[in-house]
């Protein structure tokens, strides 16, 4: 096996993160905002990849859970004056519970049916938030208390960074544990997974609850950062952007999903000169990605990156598409 430089990519990532933290205050306020939003999307994209990429549950309700998390926290803080972190925790709890229920209800659905079901759920949530304006202020937007009492964005940057890091760490632990293996087994073949002793129903519900919880966390942070929440957060347009990000990056790995979120968010800002043409452009990019590079644009890059520190011999044996001759027993 490899010695010494194995895991080089981890050190590079850690170094990059350290650099980002140290030099964060050099960022202009504008780009810091972009970075914070990118990290917000990073949490959403990675948790959605947990659902859609790892288990194959293509939920279109993920942004709805972000919206629910945001509104729950915002409203609880407003009504009861509880500390914001507590409100966000409550938002996460509500999302976990609701996510578990949705996961349970759609246990027998797959593919497009699950997508339609969750799409219906998301639209209902959006309609309720938009319509119950005496509670949510409807389309005018709910004013939410800000997390930090300062005009500077730096604390938000650090907070978003911490939340993303903790989320990725937790999700990474799940993915690398035996659970991650079971989840992928369910994606590949539910029947074979259950024949192998995997409690398919339990894991499907569990992963729905967990992913929704992370969406709730992201939504809660977003509300307390921006200071205003509108029902459109849970709408189809945001969901579509999330799908674009995750699929473009590569929906079957957490790092590529996050990478997709960062890349698309930054590109959206860089291409601002092209006005709204950016969105159809990304739609086109999504279609091209699906047509010609289904595993995502970043996935091959990521694989190269991971192998950086490995000796060439290992890299050769790790190539996974070498057809082999049938061996005799």
């Amino acid at each position, binding site marked *: 096996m490899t010695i010494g430089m194995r895991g080089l990519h981890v050190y590079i990532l850690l170094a990059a993160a350290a650099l980002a933290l140290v030099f964060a205050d050099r960022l202009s306020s504008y780009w810091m905002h972009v970075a914070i939003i990118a990290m917000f999307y990073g949490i959403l994209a990675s948790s959605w990849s947990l659902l859609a990429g790892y288990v194959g549950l293509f939920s279109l309700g993920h942004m709805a859970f972000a919206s629910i998390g945001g509104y729950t926290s915002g409203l609880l803080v407003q009504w009861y004056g509880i500390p914001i972190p507590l409100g966000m925790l409550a938002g996460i709890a509500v999302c976990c519970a609701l996510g578990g229920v949705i996961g349970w209800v759609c246990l027998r659905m797959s*593919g497009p049916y699950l997508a*339609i079901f969750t799409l219906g759920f998301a639209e209902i949530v959006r309609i309720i938030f938009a319509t119950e304006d005496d509670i949510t202020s409807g389309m005018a937007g709910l004013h939410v208390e800000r997390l930090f009492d300062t005009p500077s964005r730096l604390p938000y940057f650090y907070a978003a960074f911490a939340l993303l890091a903790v989320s990725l760490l937790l999700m990474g632990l799940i993915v690398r544990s035996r659970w991650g293996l079971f989840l992928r087994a369910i994606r590949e073949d539910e029947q074979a997974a259950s024949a192998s002793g995997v409690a398919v129903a339990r894991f499907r519900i569990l992963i729905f609850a967990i992913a929704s919880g992370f969406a709730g966390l992201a939504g809660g942070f977003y509300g307390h950062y921006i200071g205003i929440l509108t029902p459109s957060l849970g709408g189809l347009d945001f969901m579509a952007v999330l799908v674009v990000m995750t699929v473009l990056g590569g929906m079957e790995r957490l790092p590529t999903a996050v990478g997709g979120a960062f890349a698309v968010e930054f590109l959206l800002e860089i291409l601002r000169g092209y006005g709204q043409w950016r969105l*159809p452009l990304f739609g086109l990019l*999504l*279609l091209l990605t699906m*047509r010609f590079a289904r595993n995502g644009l970043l996935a091959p890059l990521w694989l190269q990156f991971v192998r950086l520190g490995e000796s060439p011999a290992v890299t050769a044996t790790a190539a996974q598409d070498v057809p082999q001759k049938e061996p005799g027993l």
Partner: protein
Amino acid sequence: MTWDYVFIQVANGAVIGIIYALIAVGVTLIFSILKIVNFAHGDLYMLGGYCAYYVITLLGVPPLGAMFVSMAVIFALAIILERLLLTPLYDDATERKDEYGLIVTFGLAFFLRNVAVMVFGPFPLKPPSFIPGVQRLGGLVITNDRLFAGGVGIVLIGALLWFMHRTIWGQALDAVSQSRESAAIVGINARRFNSVAFGIGAALAAAAGALIAPIFSLAPDMGVLPNIHAFVIVILGGMGSVGGSILAGLLLGEAENLFTAFFPDPTRALAYTNAFGLLVLMVVLVFRPQGLFGRRHLRME
């Protein structure tokens, strides 16, 4: 609330139901041949509306003629899109076709919607009426456009039924949806029908868009809700049958309009009408988790 109001809602419900059915029939047709749920169907409907609008305003074609032009244009566009994007679905080497069809049509919807925002602008447009004016029957007032939309919708559905049942091409289409293998055995090249089905489905959606435009006006996101409504209808009455779709379309149109009429809080009635349809969709899916899309035909394969 007067009974007149209820009657108007019933009449409106019928018109909307027919338009819904027109969209849903296309979703059914595409599903029964290509085996995909088309998430971009509402956006083809939207494009159909805009296409008719520009044919009327720029070329001066009369509204009804514009509708047919729009159907032809969207038919061609749909076939191009199908050739460009959906051919991997017919390749045995493609893995996870469900996922592919889902993401591609979802992405296509996003793409078309945002192109529309750029090309047509985000603000609602309203094409001229097919027939200006209203009809009064006692206390009942209904615009000519609604009557016209309902009437043309019925004619189009009738034409589709005629095509499916009375022409050899329609029968072959039906045959392919029942069994591709059997179709090949009698010498039908089933692949050709993927394009035909996608094109016809899109053309019907385009007609619906053109018909609805003078009533509700055009907007780039106008296709989102009708698309979901089409899913409701197909799942409710579908089973891959055109007749079921029409019935379910009417049923949903009526149910929604009566829901609006009887909802206790009128300021919220309209908003919750959409939620009501969605709730129906979710409940039906819980009990029929594989959906009822094309069940009738799938069973035989």
